[in-house]
């Protein structure tokens, strides 16, 4: 078994066989369940269009995915350093690239599990409505680069700083900044600055795509610009992580 596989396997086991990892998944499904239960208990919410609900659910899954990615990424190097397990990894016959990709594979596994867990929720709130299949597809196509990108960002900060606190806080600030256009009103979003922010923000890109595809039934071709945005985000963050992981802080 090569080093990449060993590390990826360990990361996956840490998520599924470790109490802490399962607790995170429980919290994640708790959020989705709370939202789903609100839909049947709250009259106003229960009357929303299926498409609107599916859109909201997809956005929630993407946000939760990015949050978990940031937490796992911040722990990837700095957490190992603080627990004394980084040096054994760095002194084993593993290249820095293999270590990074192994960690990334662990992150991707976590997102994969979250994605799979989200599908029954999407079906539950959206079956019988429009564009459920598209919602599931686009959540994977756009959600994955956004989530992994945030994971790579957090890993880069983790390797460079050697501090979980610093890398987590900084990544969370970037995540919140990305999510902020969605919190401000449509009026501000339509301003010049709002439009620029929307155009370069991968998180907005994903959510705007969900809106366009799930609610407005737009085709894939109309979303190619946003697809390019999220893929550029992923590529950029991967490059930053790769550079930082070459000489991680270990003392």
């Amino acid at each position, binding site marked *: 078994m090569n080093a990449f596989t060993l590390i990826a396997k360990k990361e996956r086991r840490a998520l*599924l*066989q470790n*109490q802490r990892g*399962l*607790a995170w*998944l*429980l919290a994640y*499904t*708790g959020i*989705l*369940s*709370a939202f*789903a*239960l609100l*839909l*049947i208990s709250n*009259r*106003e919410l*229960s*009357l929303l269009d299926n498409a609107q609900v599916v859109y909201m659910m997809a956005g929630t899954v993407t946000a939760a995915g990015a949050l978990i990615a940031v937490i796992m990424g911040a722990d990837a190097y700095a957490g190992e350093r603080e627990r004394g397990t980084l040096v054994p990894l760095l002194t084993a016959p593993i290249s820095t690239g293999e270590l990074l990709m192994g960690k990334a594979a662990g992150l991707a596994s976590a997102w994969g599990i979250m994605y799979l*867990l989200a599908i*029954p*929720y999407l*079906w*539950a*709130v959206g*079956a019988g409505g429009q564009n459920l299949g598209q919602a599931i597809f686009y959540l994977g196509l756009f959600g994955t680069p956004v989530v992994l990108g945030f994971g790579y960002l957090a890993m880069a900060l983790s390797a460079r700083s050697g501090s979980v606190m610093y890398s987590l806080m900084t990544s969370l600030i970037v995540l919140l900044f990305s999510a902020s256009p969605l919190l401000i009103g449509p009026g501000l979003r339509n301003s010049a600055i709002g439009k620029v922010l929307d155009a370069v923000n991968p998180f907005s890109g994903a959510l705007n795509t969900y809106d366009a595809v799930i609610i407005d039934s737009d085709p894939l071709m109309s979303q190619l610009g946003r697809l390019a945005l999220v893929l550029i985000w992923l590529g950029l963050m991967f490059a930053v992580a790769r550079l930082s992981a070459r000489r991680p802080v270990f003392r």
Partner: protein
Amino acid sequence: MKHFKYLLASLLLLSSSLAAAASLQLQLQSDTANPAHPTMGDWMHFNSVITNTGQQPIEGLVAWISLVEVTPGKEQPMDLEDWSAHKAVTGTTLQPGAVLQTQWPMRLIQSGDYRVVISATDRNNKTVFTSPTLQFHVAQKPVVESARILPVALGIPLLIGGLLGVQKVRRWHKTG
């Protein structure tokens, strides 16, 4: 002479109010496409016809839709905020004999018994004209989604919680 003046004034007043009362005629009908047994979440459409039956043009016409709940014990006027985005027609001028047809869409947000009415007035008239009311019943929405949502919303966290429990038991067995 004094009596005659009073009589003349009364006749004039009566004739003017008679003329005003006769100037707008409102009709209201439920659209034929409306569901026979409306349920929460359904859309209904109401069609009104406003006719200027007077001799003078109606200027600054305002017509609006009102909804009242008449469910026994819950009688109240309804805020149409969530029910309808099309709440009024304004600024129209209606020539004598002219007709204004308007469709009023409405989403049924809440179950219960309701009456809908169209009211109208104009800039010169102190009278508010109303259409006949239409009464309808909105049935409670059967929560069909709960059959899908409940098993997922409760089942998946339970499954993961169960896995957590199994982990704990396994660990306990391992260490003895």
